[in-house]
């Protein structure tokens, strides 16, 4: 069952000096129940606008969104099953974090016990009585996550939740997101921390210029970026390069190795080519592709 369905979503903003800015351009997306879904894209790709459309904060120019089976105009019927963070969430600066959460919780009749529980979960229990304006960006982000968890939501929509967090905090959030997913919740995660996304997400969608240019399980998306490159190490790099190019391979030296554009199955031909020239391979392996590589590859023609 899809928890988020986006069909033909289009959003244009009027520019101050005339003209229109297309933020989202016919986006189609379906997020199935369970797991962590990464929503990636360069700055200005339309991630936050899409999230705002999903949460009913921004009205689409065309298309529509459904969350937990409910159209945006009926979002209030399912809002108590959704927890969200949109960019850096803001709370009353002169209230403590605990008091802010208690106020929010009262809207849904959530008691102080749940507030204590989420503060504990995000590591803010000791600082819960501090005034929010004295919080660091990372603490504000944790408070936002705590607020998002307050309703024990089925669906979490998190826009850059790791913003401002230190490495330890990022790791904690990663673990928290995995735990939440393991509990059966769906986490829709917008982030630019691609390494984090790769570690935590089951599915990803990559957005560029308001369009989805890749989506699917992380392994499938990574496979697209495995542009069949092999890492070759040999003693005589220049000689090896010459031999390989003479044999018809597309190759180039990269630091202490040669990058050969060829699928993993071509390993035997590479070793044979070099061996016939009396050059012996000390290392031969397919190049590991990170989500970052794929992301950069896919978005290089679609800068925002």
């Amino acid at each position, binding site marked *: 069952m899809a928890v988020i369905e986006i069909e033909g979503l289009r959003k244009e903003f009027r520019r101050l000096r005339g003209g229109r800015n297309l933020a989202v351009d016919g986006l189609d997306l379906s997020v199935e129940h369970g797991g962590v879904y990464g929503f990636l894209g360069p700055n200005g790709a339309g991630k936050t606008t899409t999230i705002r459309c999903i949460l009913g*904060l921004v*009205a689409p120019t065309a298309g529509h969104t459904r969350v937990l089976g409910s159209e945006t105009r009926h979002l209030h019927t399912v*809002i108590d099953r959704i927890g969200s963070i*949109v960019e850096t969430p803001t*709370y009353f600066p002169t209230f403590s974090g605990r008091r802010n959460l208690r106020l929010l919780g009262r809207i849904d009749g959530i008691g102080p016990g749940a507030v204590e529980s989420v503060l504990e979960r995000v590591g803010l229990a000791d600082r819960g009585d501090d005034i929010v304006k004295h919080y660091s960006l990372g603490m504000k982000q944790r408070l936002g996550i705590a607020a998002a968890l307050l309703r024990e939501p089925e669906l979490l929509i998190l826009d850059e939740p790791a913003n401002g967090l230190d490495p330890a905090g990022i790791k904690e959030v990663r673990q928290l997101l995995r735990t939440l997913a393991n509990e059966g919740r769906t986490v829709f995660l917008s982030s630019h921390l691609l390494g984090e996304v790769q570690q935590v997400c089951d599915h990803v969608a990559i957005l560029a210029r308001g369009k989805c240019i890749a989506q699917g399980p992380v392994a499938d998306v990574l496979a697209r970026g495995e542009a069949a490159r092999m890492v070759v190490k040999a003693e005589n790099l220049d000689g090896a390069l010459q031999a390989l190019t003479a044999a018809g391979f597309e190759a180039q030296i990269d630091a202490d190795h040669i990058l050969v554009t060829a699928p993993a199955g071509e390993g035997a031909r590479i070793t044979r080519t070099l061996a016939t020239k009396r050059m012996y391979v000390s290392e031969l392996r397919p190049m590991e592709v990170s989500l970052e590589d794929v992301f950069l590859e896919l978005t290089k023609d679609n800068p925002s």
Partner: protein
Amino acid sequence: MRLLGIEIRRAFARRLTKMVFIIALAGILAAGLTVFFKSHRTEVRVGPSATQEQQIKNDMIESCLKGGPLPGEGEGAPSAVPGPGFSLPPVGTAERQTVCVKAADQLQFGGLEDKRFHLTEITDIFKHLSVWFAIMAWLLAASFIGAEWRTGMMTTLLTWEPRRVRVMIAKVIAAVFVTFVIVMVLQALLVGALYPAAAYRGSTAGTNAAFWRTFSYVGLRSGALAALAAILGFAAGALGRNTAAGLGAGFVYLAVIEGGLLGGLIPSIRPWLIVGNAIVFVNNERNVDIRGRSPTQAILLLVGYAVGLWLIATLVTKKRDVS
């Protein structure tokens, strides 16, 4: 109701609300002390000293003897002139001197002035203060919504309660409730601050049941005017999504457009302007400031403006993107 309760708590807990209340409290305390020390226990005799009085009389006598007017003549003071047809004796005669001296002796300078604070004056004080309470209410309400938009709190709230009309209703009721309560409390405190001056150094004469009834109505009208100002300020702040915009719009409209352009250039529009109707309503008198306008008509018109502007602000909030 939960949302309303939360909004009321938030409104009371805001720093600006506390700050404005404390400033008003300080003002009330200062007013109470000032009136206490300026009010005199008894009536005060005012006028020249005895020496000055004698000097003035001597000058008048001298002038009279030289052919001048009889002392006190033509100055509204009691005159020694016996009656119609009387003519002053000729200059240099003993009769003239007698008449001039007698007239001067009958003159009275100065008198008793009541410098006491009368508690009955408080009704007029409240009428004048209603303007300030309205300005305070506008400020609090415009800031209540404007600051939430500016800081992004509204976005956070709308991710919890996406029904914007419901949010706007809860917020405006909270703004009206809080400003009304604050104004009523401040008025009560003002009475408390001024009462000792009247009771111990002034006068409480005339403070019968009828006075207190009239006075209570003035207080309630002042509170109601503040509540209406709160709705207008709230709507302006919501439209501008900013406190400064809400305050600026209020100032520009009331001071420049209504006070200057509309009121001055198009006199026929005066019955439809806010300030004039507010004056009619607070004074509870027909024909005050606007001819033919009754207090009921005035309040209905003001309520219409406030609700109308709030409806516009709510519709705009419902339709406009939250970015």
